[in-house]
């Protein structure tokens, strides 16, 4: 293995331009994929932020007694997917309206009766903000006799989930297409690098080198090219991320696991492409 590593490193030294170009191609191919991941990740965050607003509001009758309300809160909290149930009293509802709507603040001082009903606001766990889950909880809330009305913006929610589904399918198709293109480009870049050293492979076979001894340096060289390309892709994507944050709008950086997966992809694809390319030349001589 030490010889293979020495050979791989000397391969870099002997043809720095070729391997540099090869790593650049791999890097650019992975950059396209990484930029797509950056966009997809931030879109996902945006959709999740909107999803956080998914909630069921159960408006209570005037006659609702505190003990009944407490029991309902406990029961609703125990339902699957429910993150929290919060009781909003009539006074809190009025105060909130005053803060959010200035026109109400103007005339509310003259009000003799508080027109806002008390309510229960039911929020959901991240994985449970689905139409089925929300409808189930809304139905459970409306079963209480002291609940007058239940609202959860059904139409809005259905649109949101449709949007999320479209986004997921688009991401999958586009991501798959980008990954396929990246694989092809990486494969071609590595094949060119191996092609340039076909004379070495020929001589190795000619003088009686074992196949595994021929394969290993190329395998490592492919992996190193992939790694360099992966690092380049991360640097370029990081630069883009910084520029967008500085000059356009705020976005989040992709999770470290995604960057790690990108690097690993470069290494694995590089090594695989190199091995496959060498195998072609091993059939000769």
């Amino acid at each position, binding site marked *: 293995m030490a*010889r293979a590593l020495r*050979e791989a490193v000397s391969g870099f030294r*002997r043809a720095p331009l070729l391997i540099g170009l090869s790593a650049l191609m791999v890097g650019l191919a992975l950059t396209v994929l990484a930029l797509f991941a950056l966009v997809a990740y931030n879109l996902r965050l945006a959709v999740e932020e909107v999803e956080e607003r998914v909630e069921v509001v159960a408006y209570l009758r005037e006659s609702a007694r505190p003990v009944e309300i407490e029991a309902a809160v406990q029961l609703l909290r125990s339902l699957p997917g429910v993150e929290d149930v919060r009781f909003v009293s009539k006074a809190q509802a009025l105060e909130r309206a005053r803060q959010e709507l200035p026109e109400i603040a103007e005339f509310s001082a003259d009000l003799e009766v508080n027109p806002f009903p008390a309510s229960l606001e039911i929020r959901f766990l991240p994985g449970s903000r689905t139409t089925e889950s929300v409808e189930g909880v809304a139905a459970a809330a409306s079963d209480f006799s002291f609940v007058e009305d239940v609202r959860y913006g059904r139409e809005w929610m259905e649109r949101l989930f449709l949007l999320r589904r479209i986004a997921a399918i688009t991401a999958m198709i586009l991501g798959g297409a980008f990954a396929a293109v990246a694989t092809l480009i990486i494969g071609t870049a590595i094949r060119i690098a191996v092609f340039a050293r076909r*004379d*070495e492979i*020929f*001589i*190795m*076979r*000619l*003088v*009686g*080198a*074992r*196949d595994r*001894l*021929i394969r290993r340096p190329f395998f490592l060289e492919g992996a190193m090219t992939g790694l360099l390309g992966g690092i380049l892709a991360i640097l370029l994507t990081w630069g883009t991320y910084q520029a967008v944050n500085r000059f356009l709008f705020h976005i989040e950086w992709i999770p470290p696991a995604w960057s790690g997966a990108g690097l690993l992809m470069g290494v694995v694809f590089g090594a695989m492409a190199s091995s496959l390319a060498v195998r072609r030349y091993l059939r*000769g*001589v």
Partner: protein
Amino acid sequence: MIKLINVSKVYPRTGTALESIQLQVPKGQFVFLTGHSGSGKSTTLRLIHMSERPSSGEVLVDGFSSRRTPGRDIWKVRRRVGFVFQDFRLLPGRTALENVAFALEVTDTPRGEIRPRAQRLLSKVGLSAKAGSPVHQLSGGEQQRVTIARALASEPLVLLADEPTGNLDDRATRGILDLFWEINALGMAVIMATHDLELLRSYSAARVLELDQGRLVFDSQAPGSGG
């Protein structure tokens, strides 16, 4: 040591290259393999090197059979058979020493022995003074000597040479032939493909085999050949 038993080689596109070749080359023999272009000389050498397998029949090299030796063990045959080409096949941009050392590196030579052995091999072919020269700066004859040194790296039992003097002038040709004889004198068999009949006349001690359209039509050692 080398046996071709009823060997035929047929290529799908160009047809029959060799037909029913029976041949035996003992250790230490010097053989000229001659014939016109396309007569099957190079094919014969490639079959002995096991770069190719016969379509029918069997090639035996030091006990390794073309029928029974799996692809993963072909390297064992290659280390017993040195190969020299007309067009040298050297690694451009590397020195003579590096070219020879490369063959040693990839054939399990201990690291510390590579350089001195490469130097010794270059001395053997009379090129120690040019060890540090990039091969593209060497003359044709010198480049061919580097390929011979490389072919000797694994201490083979036989040296195959496919028109090794085809690109060389008369003087360089003589030099290479003399070198082959010296190597042969040390006990290594040499099989050299050539269509240069002048060479055959000058080195009359060698066995001469002639191929014509894939058939062995003359063997100077066969009874009644007059050779």
